[in-house]
């Protein structure tokens, strides 16, 4: 499959359109650089359609240009249109018939390939023991919950999906506000999250790496900054991450961190955020138990460093206008301590 796909790729690079699209591919968020089973099918289909339609386009253009430059046949003095040459007429009609037949056959072949791809996309849903993850689309972030029959083994996080390479993943897609759409192009196509109507999506990561995805259905002010990461890693790395994530938040060590925790627990933060191991158990915003271990905050908008964290806490509305988190008026000492505490939540 990959070989055919790359042959096709090479073939269709002739078409200027494909050069344009190849330049767009960033690798870690691209539908034409597949890292999963289904994305490979989809990418094959895409290159195949591009190659065939490019060939048809070139053929049509060649014939059109040829028609422009063809010298007109000398017309006899008597009106040729009233007495056409029967031999010539017959040839013209068979050319048209052949062109129609080729067009129909090509379209039919494309339909069959598309149909076959559609069926192939579904094969993973037969998997026996997929890893089940519940993804809730929120305005404007993603809540990720790893399901487990034992509630204490469940892990809740945000905007970051860790998965083991090679194992089928079953996503349960839920929304409680408006319609969102889950799109991790390196693994699969889009799937909508519809309020009151859970949907499922199966995929598998075949190569380890960090991939980006985002909401693909306009969902309000900050739709554009509603990104997520899929981190595909070997099973042992995933297990290590998973058992670390099950732990409650580490206790604060320094005085500043302790002061920061007091501020967190006594102010508005706890109404929306959870930190396991503390009385903060709000379910409106992202779970912050291990937030310091994440590379990004604000749904992939900002690198997770001290300055960004402080700016984010003080004035999130300047970074993502319209989000649910209010502005906060802390004194510099309080903000400093709060950031110290949040940065200790590894």
């Amino acid at each position, binding site marked *: 499959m990959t070989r055919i796909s790359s042959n096709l790729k090479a073939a269709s690079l002739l078409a200027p359109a494909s050069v344009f699209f190849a330049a767009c591919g960033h690798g870690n968020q691209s539908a034409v650089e597949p890292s999963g089973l289904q994305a490979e099918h989809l990418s094959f289909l895409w290159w195949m359609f591009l190659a065939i339609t490019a060939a048809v386009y070139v053929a049509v253009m060649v014939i059109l240009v040829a028609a422009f430059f063809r010298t007109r046949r000398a017309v006899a003095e008597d009106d040729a249109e009233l007495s056409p040459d029967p031999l010539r007429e017959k040839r013209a009609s068979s050319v048209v018939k052949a062109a129609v037949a080729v067009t129909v056959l090509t379209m039919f072949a494309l339909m069959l390939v598309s149909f076959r791809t559609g069926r192939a996309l579904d094969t993973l849903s037969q998997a026996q023991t997929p890893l089940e993850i519940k993804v809730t689309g929120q305005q404007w972030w993603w809540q990720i919950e790893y399901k487990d029959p034992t509630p204490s083994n469940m892990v809740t996080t945000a905007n970051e999906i860790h998965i083991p390479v090679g194992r089928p993943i079953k996503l349960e897609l839920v929304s409680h506000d408006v319609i969102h759409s889950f799109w991790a192009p390196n693994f699969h196509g889009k799937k909508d999250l519809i*309020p009151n109507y859970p949907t499922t999506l199966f995929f598998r990561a075949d190569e380890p790496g960090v991939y980006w995805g985002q909401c693909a259905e306009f969902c309000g002010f900050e739709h554009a900054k509603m990104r997520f990461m899929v981190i595909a890693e070997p099973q042992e790395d995933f297990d290590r991450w998973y058992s670390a994530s099950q732990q409650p938040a580490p206790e604060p060590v320094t005085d500043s961190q302790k002061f920061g925790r007091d501020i967190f627990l006594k*102010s*508005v933060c*706890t*109404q929306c955020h959870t930190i396991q191991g503390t009385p903060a158990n709000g379910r409106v915003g992202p779970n912050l138990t291990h937030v310091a271990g994440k590379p990004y905050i604000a749904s992939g908008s900002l690198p997770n460093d001290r300055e960004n964290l402080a700016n984010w806490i003080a004035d999130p*509305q*300047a970074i993502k206008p*319209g989000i649910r988190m*209010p*502005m906060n008026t802390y004194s510099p000492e309080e903000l400093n301590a709060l950031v110290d505490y949040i940065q200790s939540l590894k």
Partner: protein
Amino acid sequence: MKLSIKLLVVLAFVLFGFASCEREERGFRVKTPDANRINTKRLTTLQAGEVIPEPDIKNEYEENAFALSEGKRLFSQMNCVGCHAHGGGGMGPALMDDKWIYGSRPDQIFATIEEGRPNGMPSFNGKLPDYQVWQIAAYVRSLSGLVPKSAAPGRDDDMQSREPENSTEKQEPKRVNAPQ
């Protein structure tokens, strides 16, 4: 004559447009307005000595569709629905009727949320920014039709459990002394 009628119609539309500007205004960067902190600890209509008239405090959020829908969202997310349901009441008193134990004025509702009330109403003091409490207070008043219908929410984003606030009949507030 004809021209002036045309002019009037155009003018009416322009005015209409201005009116809707305010209705649709969305204030994101709200610093907690300390000026809104008000002292409304008076829990009885009886007053000693010279009578001080009740303050006439207007909640601007009652005329703003965005603020009312934010209030509606917070009403669920801050678990007001846990006791008051979607206005019908349960463990807590109903909010869609005409009976008010602690007053129906915006500042009285604000005080009720901030300070808490006996028999179960928790205090949200310090747990919500003031502007969000004002938004919830505005929504609470829309439950019994006390806000302009042009601004009140016309539907739920989620499942609808009662008729929308903008078609709620106005319930003239009545003071009662205990939950009924």
